[in-house]
């Protein structure tokens, strides 16, 4: 479904080139639920953002369904992004739109379906999130957990093939983390392909079908959760877990 080949991403920081992703080649198949863990600054977010083109790869390629989406020539990145949902750490709900409009804006503008159908679907998504009474409310008056559930609904209405979660619960108060994780678990059960960057090790263990450990812009260990959490191979990984 998704693949990268020799993916490299450099940032210029104070006029100095810094390599943040240093040559990642990997493949993600339909139905996989991939937890991405690793120390801060290891390039987890950047990797995720390269997958949907929010960051442009310095070199190497990203493939979606076999199509090279890093070549600007034969790829309309906007079209690809419709199939790659993203959920952000800080929600990024559109502040000028109410909850319902947040969800319906993209499908309405992109004319994926007719308007009535979009609205019906949005309302049923809100019901699923337990937020049907918030349709006319503006984001500023929602709690963090409610905001993140709206953000998930906003991604889901595009019927994406994959959803990328970048620390979806890191900005939440502890009591709200559960409600959001529950929604993601629900999605997992329905067979959604997903990648999630997380610091919730228990959640990763429970939901992921595969765990990638990032260090210094590289995937240094890539294993199923049992192996990763019980018998990690790489000394850096063991050192990382010893802090928990």
């Amino acid at each position, binding site marked *: 479904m998704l693949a990268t080949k020799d993916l490299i991403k450099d940032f210029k920081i104070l006029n100095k080139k810094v390599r943040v992703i240093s040559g990642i080649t990997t493949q993600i198949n339909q139905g996989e639920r991939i937890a991405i863990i690793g120390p801060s600054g290891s390039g987890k977010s950047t990797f995720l953002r390269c997958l949907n083109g929010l960051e442009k790869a310095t070199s190497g390629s990203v493939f979606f369904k076999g199509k090279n989406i890093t070549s600007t020539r034969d790829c309309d990145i906007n079209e690809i992004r419709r199939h790659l949902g993203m959920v952000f750490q800080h929600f990024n709900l559109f*502040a000028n739109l109410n909850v319902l409009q947040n969800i319906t*804006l993209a499908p309405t503008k992109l004319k994926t379906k007719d308007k009535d159908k979009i609205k019906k679907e949005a309302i049923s998504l809100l019901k699923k999130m337990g937020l049907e009474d918030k349709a006319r409310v503006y984001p500023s008056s929602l709690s963090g957990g409610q905001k993140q559930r709206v953000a998930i609904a906003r991604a889901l209405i595009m019927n994406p093939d994959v959803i990328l979660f970048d620390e979806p619960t890191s900005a939440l108060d502890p009591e709200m983390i559960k409600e959001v994780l529950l929604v993601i678990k629900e999605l997992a059960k329905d067979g959604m392909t997903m990648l999630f960057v997380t610091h919730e090790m228990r959640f990763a263990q429970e939901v992921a079908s595969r765990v990638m450990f990032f260090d210094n812009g590289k995937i240094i260990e890539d294993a199923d959760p049992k192996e990763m959490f019980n018998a990690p191979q790489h000394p850096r990984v063991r050192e990382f877990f010893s802090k928990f």
Partner: protein
Amino acid sequence: MCAVDSIEKIKSTGQVKMITNAEFPPFEFIDDKGDIKGIDIDISQKIAEEIGVKLNIESVSFDAILLELESGSADFAAAAMTSSEERSQNFSFSDPYFTTTQRILVKKESKIKSSSDLVGKKIGVAIGTVGDSYCSSKEGFLEPVRFSKPADAVSDLINSRLDAVVVDDLTADQLISGKLDLIKKTEENLTQEDYVIVVRKNDENFLHIINEVIAKLKDNGELQKIFDNYLSAQTENKKDPQVVADNIYYKYSGLILKGLKNTILITVFSLIVGVFLGTIMALFRVAYKENGRLKFLSLISKFYVTVIRGTPVIVQLFIVYYVFLSRFGISDKFLSAVLTFGVNSGAYVAEIVRSGIISIDKGQFEAGYSLGLPYKDVMLNIIMPQATRNILPTLISEFISLLKETSVVGIIGLTDLTRAGDVIRSVTYEAFTPLLIVAIIYLFIVIIFTKMISLLKQRLFKHDIQ
């Protein structure tokens, strides 16, 4: 310089254009209906009649008269001007139609009696007048203090900031009437100066006609009649200064309203132009920063903002009016003002809009992109509506500063609020009251719009109150 012949052009267009500075009664002034009247206007009317064409009058600031004449936008100048060396290089002068002299004004109790007493004294003059050059060149005199209006010099005299004021005889009479208990005119005639009509150098045929008209008016006594008419009207006006003053403000309220209307119209139209131009310029730069497109236009936009914000608006006004528009044969003052202030405020609006957009969290862009929305949709539906909330209150502040900045348009002869106050000052020889009235009107508008900003902010940010 090659020979010019205005006569042919005048005859073919059926009109002759006279340029003046209508702030020098009784020679030229704006009456209570906003029309330009005065001795020079009556004489010019006779000239037009002699040629058999219509007279067109335009009033600009005194410094601008010769510029306008030289550029060809007017055919002759009649503005109580005297012939002088510098002027004679590019212009020709008619025979004199009036002769006057400079006089000294002092406080009632002053010991100054003649020019010899002026040595080492602080003297006030009106800038660019004969009094100015007389005092500047006289041995032993201090550098004179130059005012744009003689009335301002007189108020400094009364307040003892000056020892004397040197002005022409007629103006001197105006200035002391109603203030006889405070100031007086000394006996000595300092100069002899001839008022002449000015045409472009070598415009001999036209000059010949003008001289003929002047000779005729002198011979048949009509010139004397014109002078008597205006001078007697003036002395009559001065009988009871208080009544006259009240009367004048009442009479000139129409002029104030006209000025106010112009000030508001110039500001509103300029802001419309500015918002349009500024938004486009800002969008160029944002587009380049966001996705690397429109690099060239973004550079142009940056250049535009830098140049406009780095030069005084009054210089921009001169360039638009005297250089840019005149190249296309356009001499519309209102258009010049709107164009200047529109382009000027566009640069400020561009920065307002740009910082309004930049201040939007990057996450808003990214959330839009991640759903597959193209740049255009993200800007239109997500970014701009949010940016507008930041921009609108600042835009009203821009309106307020624009309103005040437009007060310089008088310099190209447009009657705005400030200019209307100036006109009244030149008629009443009063410095204080007209300025106070004008200031209060500006302040009143500014207070209204400031109030609007706070109301708007309350409304716009209602959603954000958590």
